[in-house]
C-alpha cells in the first residue's frame, strides 16, 4: 500500500473535526489553527470555481512538485475559504510562482517575510473583502481565509515546514494570513492594479514577500510634505531588509493622509521621488561591519547615505484602511518582486 503522502485521495474512517485535526497535525498539514476537512465533495465545489484557468502549474519550489488543482483546493477548504474565494487564492499562488518572486529564497530564508496579498477590482465587494478600517486585521472571513489558504499551500505544497524548510529566525504573525483589499473608492490617484496596466474592471491579486505592516503615525502634520517627512523617517530603517537596497516596498496610505497629500498636489510620481530622496539611511546609523558587507555585495553609500531601494520605482504606493491618521510601510524580503495576477474565473 502506498504511503499516505503519495496518495492523492486518502480513505479514512469517518471522524469528527477534532479527530481530523489530530490526524492533520500528525501529517504536518496544520498551521496550528483548526482546519476544515477537505472532503472529496467540498474539494469538487472549489475546483468548479476555477474552470476558467486551465494553465498548468510549474513545479513549486523548494519542494519542486507540480501541484494538482485538487491539492490546492484541499488547502483552501482546510483554511476555511468559501468556494468563491478559491480563484483569488489560486491567483495569489500563481503570483508567488513568478520566478522573480523568488519563492525558494522567500520561504527558506531566516528573514521573517510572509506573502502579502492585496486584492483590487470589483471582486473586493463581491467577496466582502475588507479594504477599510482594520483592513490588515481580524474580522473578515475573506481576508482571513484567502491569506491563510496561500499560507497552507506554501506549507503543504511548497514544503515550507517551520524549522525544516522554513528557517525564519522568529517568523511573523502575517505568516498565518496577510490579505487585504485596496481602498479604491478613497484613493485620489490611480488604483494599484491600474498602475500596473490592468483595466479598472479587472480583478487582480498582488503579492509581495514582505514584513508585517510598520505603522506610520502622523496626527500632527497638516501638509503633504509634513506627512512625507514622517513617512520617510519611518521608512529609513537600518533593521529592515530594505537596507540592502535591492527590493521593492509598499507604502499603504490611509485615506485621510491620502486626502491631505492630494490636496497639496502630490502625485504618485512626486510622492515616490520625495520618499526616495528622504528615506535614505545615514551612515552613522549603520555599523562598520555591515557597511563592509553591503559594499562587497554592490550596495555602496551615496555620500553619507544608503538608499533603501534601487530607484523611486521600488516604492509602490496605494491606499487602504479607514478613518484615522495612520498609514503603513511594508518592506519586502529584498530579493523578490511584486507580482500582480488577474483573477481568472
Amino acid at each position, binding site marked *: 500500500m502506498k504511503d499516505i503522502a503519495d496518495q492523492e485521495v486518502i480513505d479514512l474512517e469517518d471522524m469528527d473535526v477534532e479527530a481530523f485535526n489530530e490526524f492533520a497535525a500528525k501529517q504536518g498539514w496544520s498551521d496550528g489553527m483548526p482546519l476544515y476537512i477537505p472532503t472529496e465533495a467540498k474539494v469538487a465545489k472549489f475546483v468548479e470555481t476555477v474552470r476558467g484557468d486551465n494553465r498548468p502549474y510549474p513545479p513549486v*519550489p523548494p519542494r519542486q512538485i507540480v501541484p494538482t488543482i485538487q491539492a490546492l483546493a484541499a488547502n483552501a477548504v482546510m483554511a476555511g475559504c468559501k468556494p468563491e474565494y478559491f480563484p483569488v487564492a489560486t491567483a495569489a499562488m500563481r503570483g508567488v510562482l513568478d520566478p522573480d518572486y523568488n519563492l525558494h529564497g522567500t520561504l527558506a530564508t531566516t528573514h521573517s517575510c510572509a506573502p502579502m496579498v492585496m486584492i483590487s477590482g470589483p471582486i473586493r465587494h463581491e467577496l466582502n473583502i475588507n479594504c477599510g478600517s482594520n483592513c490588515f486585521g481580524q474580522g473578515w472571513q475573506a481576508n482571513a481565509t484567502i491569506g491563510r489558504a496561500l499560507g497552507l499551500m506554501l506549507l503543504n505544497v511548497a*514544503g515550507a515546514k517551520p524549522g*525544516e524548510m522554513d*528557517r525564519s529566525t522568529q517568523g511573523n504573525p502575517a505568516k498565518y494570513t496577510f490579505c487585504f483589499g485596496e481602498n479604491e473608492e478613497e484613493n485620489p490617484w490611480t488604483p494599484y492594479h491600474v498602475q500596473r496596466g490592468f483595466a479598472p474592471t479587472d480583478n487582480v491579486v498582488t503579492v509581495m514577500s514582505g514584513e508585517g505592516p510598520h505603522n506610520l503615525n502622523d496626527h500632527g502634520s497638516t501638509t503633504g510634505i509634513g506627512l512625507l517627512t514622517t513617512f520617510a523617517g519611518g521608512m529609513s530603517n537600518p533593521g529592515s531588509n530594505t537596507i540592502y537596497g535591492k527590493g521593492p516596498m509598499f507604502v499603504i496610505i490611509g485615506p485621510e493622509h491620502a486626502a491631505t497629500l492630494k490636496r497639496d498636489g502630490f502625485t504618485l510620481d512626486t510622492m515616490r521621488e520625495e520618499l526616495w530622496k528622504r528615506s535614505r539611511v545615514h551612515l552613522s546609523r549603520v555599523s562598520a561591519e555591515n557597511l563592509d558587507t553591503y559594499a562587497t555585495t554592490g550596495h555602496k553609500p551615496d555620500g553619507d547615505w544608503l538608499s533603501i531601494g534601487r530607484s523611486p520605482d521600488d516604492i509602490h504606493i496605494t491606499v487602504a484602511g479607514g478613518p484615522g491618521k495612520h498609514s503603513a510601510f511594508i518592506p519586502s524580503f529584498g530579493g523578490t518582486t511584486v507580482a500582480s495576477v488577474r483573477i481568472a474565473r
Partner: protein
Amino acid sequence: MIATETFKPLVLAQAKARKVEPRLIVVKHPVGGLNAEELRERIEAATKGLTEATT
C-alpha cells in the same frame, strides 16, 4: 558545501527536492556574526572536513 549543523536539515531537504547528494562539511553554528578569532575554529573545522572528505 559548508553548512552549519543547525542548517544541515534545510540543506538536505533542498537537496532531496533537487535529487542531488551534496558532499557536506558540517561546522558548528553560527558562522555569521563571529569575530576573526571565533571564526578561526570554523576555518579549522571546515578545512579538516574538506581534507577528510577528499582523501
